[in-house]
């Protein structure tokens, strides 16, 4: 890495001092991970990560993250297409609202969801009348995760749609394809890499979700206690277990990042 990149720096004329803050930034990310890996109690690692509470939490996390990713795709794809392809006054305002969960503290998102779907919430009171309860159930976990993960899918896909442009869609339309056919046979296949990486990002965000989940869904083992919540709880009583589970979460995240990265380089054109 050092050889070719060093010549690369000279060739592009980057100032040498830039290496120092760049290295600091890199170390800032790597060192804490390293510190954690070094603390892991490897002798008890298998037992720690296979305890019933841990397995419950991991399975719940994977299940709910998969469900919320599915919801993100189902509703996020149409939203991204609308943002990328239409042009009407107020579009930028809508885009701002879509991005809001990115900058909102998750706890605030959880409170907002509670006042929407909670028993006395805006929609929750009617759902409650029908006998449907959402807050503090697994459904609430999925909704909380979807709320925070949706912007990741929408922005990533919108970017892909804008890059792809509408020239192929125009040609397809003049060839007699109805809008639905164009969407299904041209638009979606062309942005599939963008859709996949967007979905993976959304999954990763859902997997790491903590604040909104705790606020809106609580922490009930096997029902709403996802892996991040389990880690937080274990940290109080059994720091070794927390570190071991953290490592599991890191492993999953690394696999995800690697997937997105290789996807991004895939030349589908």
């Amino acid at each position, binding site marked *: 890495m050092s050889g070719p990149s060093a010549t690369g720096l000279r060739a592009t004329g980057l100032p040498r001092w830039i290496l120092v803050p760049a290295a600091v930034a890199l170390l800032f990310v790597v060192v804490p991970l390293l510190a954690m890996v070094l603390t892991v109690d490897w002798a008890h690692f298998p037992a720690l990560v296979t305890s019933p509470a841990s397995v419950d939490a991991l399975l719940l996390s994977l299940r709910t993250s998969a469900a919320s990713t599915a919801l993100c795709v189902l509703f996020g794809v149409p939203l991204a297409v609308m943002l990328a392809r239409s042009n009407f006054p107020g579009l930028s305002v809508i885009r701002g609202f879509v991005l809001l969960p990115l900058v909102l503290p998750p706890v605030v998102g959880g409170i907002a969801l509670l006042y929407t779907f909670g028993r006395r919430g805006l929609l929750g009171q009617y759902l409650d009348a029908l006998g449907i309860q959402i807050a503090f159930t697994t459904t609430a976990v999925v909704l909380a995760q979807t709320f925070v993960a949706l912007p990741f899918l929408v922005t990533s896909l919108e970017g892909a749609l804008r890059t792809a442009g509408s020239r192929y869609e125009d040609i397809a339309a*003049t060839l007699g394809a109805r809008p639905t056919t164009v969407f299904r046979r041209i638009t979606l296949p062309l942005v599939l890499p963008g859709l996949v990486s967007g979905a993976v990002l959304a999954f990763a965000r859902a997997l790491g979700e903590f604040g909104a989940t705790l606020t809106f869904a609580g922490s009930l083992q096997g029902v709403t206690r996802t892996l991040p919540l389990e880690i937080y709880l274990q940290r109080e009583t059994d720091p070794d277990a927390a570190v071991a589970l953290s490592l599991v979460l890191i492993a999953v995240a690394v696999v995800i990042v690697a997937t997105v990265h290789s996807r991004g380089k895939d030349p*589908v054109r």
Partner: protein
Amino acid sequence: MSLSVRARVAARDVDVDLEVAEGSIVAVLGPNGAGKSTLLGVVSGLLRPDEGCVELDGRVLTDTATGLAVPPHDRSVVLLAQQALLFPHLTVAGNVEFAPRSAGLGRREARARAAHWLREVDATDLADRRPHELSGGQAQRVALARALAADPHLLLLDEPMSALDVTATPVLRALLRRVLREAGRTALLVTHDPLDVLALADRAVVLENGRIVEDGPARQVLTRPRSAFGARIAGTNLVTGILREDALDTADGLVHGRLDPDCAPGLPAVAVFTPSAVAVYPELPHGSPRNALRVTVAELEARGATVLVRSTTGIAAEITTAALAELDVHPGSTVWFVVKATEVGIHSTAVRSQPRTAHDEHGGETEQVDHPTGDDEER
């Protein structure tokens, strides 16, 4: 009347009125930004005019007066662009099957139709390839097959050959000639190449600044152009001026030539001559030729074995590279352009001040004398 377009697009300052007879191919010429693509956009339905009406085979496709705008997929108007734009995720066969499948044909029928059109464009052996595995010429041939497989009432060809290399262009041109001309298809062809116009079009219109400034049989627009762009595209020199007794008074000096019958003193006219008819001299040659213009050289343009010497006033002289070396001509030097009067045609442009009606009023009498054409039937 197969196609009739009347459109005004304020944002691009385009205001055109064009009619195309069934089975004819009309070349649309004009400088960049003249409104050619806007015209195609309006016809294809991808662009809505501020005001106008598009009618194809008796069916109204666009009418701003009633708010009617048939969507592009329902127009039977297919666009073949400069880039082939083959769908990258489909095979060649999949691309050509796209239109038949979209029209609701079964898989088997669509496949048969695709096979037919791939055969027509000599691309049968490419059927299983992916678009990124094709050369530019191959891709454009496949794009043509894909367009024809839609069985359109009208084909819009937007500089289909401009992105191809020199070997692929003649192949595609011959192919277009075969599948368009011989099948009697109706088409609008935007191009910059006079060879395309001669090979493919019945008629040529010249767009300048969003207006049709010239409209006539293809051969006539190329050989006897009345607009500056018509002359440039044909590689012909066109010098405007005011007629004197027997010569044209231009900014470059007096130009003598063969005068059209309708030329009269005091009226504006153009002198037309080919670059190869122009000889270049460092000094005014002896024997005082009738057409000797003192010009400043603006640029030199290599054209294989010859070089085009272009003056600051836009006149081009075509000389051999050997002659160029002997002359020591370079941009900024002053030389004499000498043209035999017999090589110069002088045409009246008396009514050019109202470009849109100029040809209609003007063309009738003079053009019909020596160029009897079917042009008038279309009006």
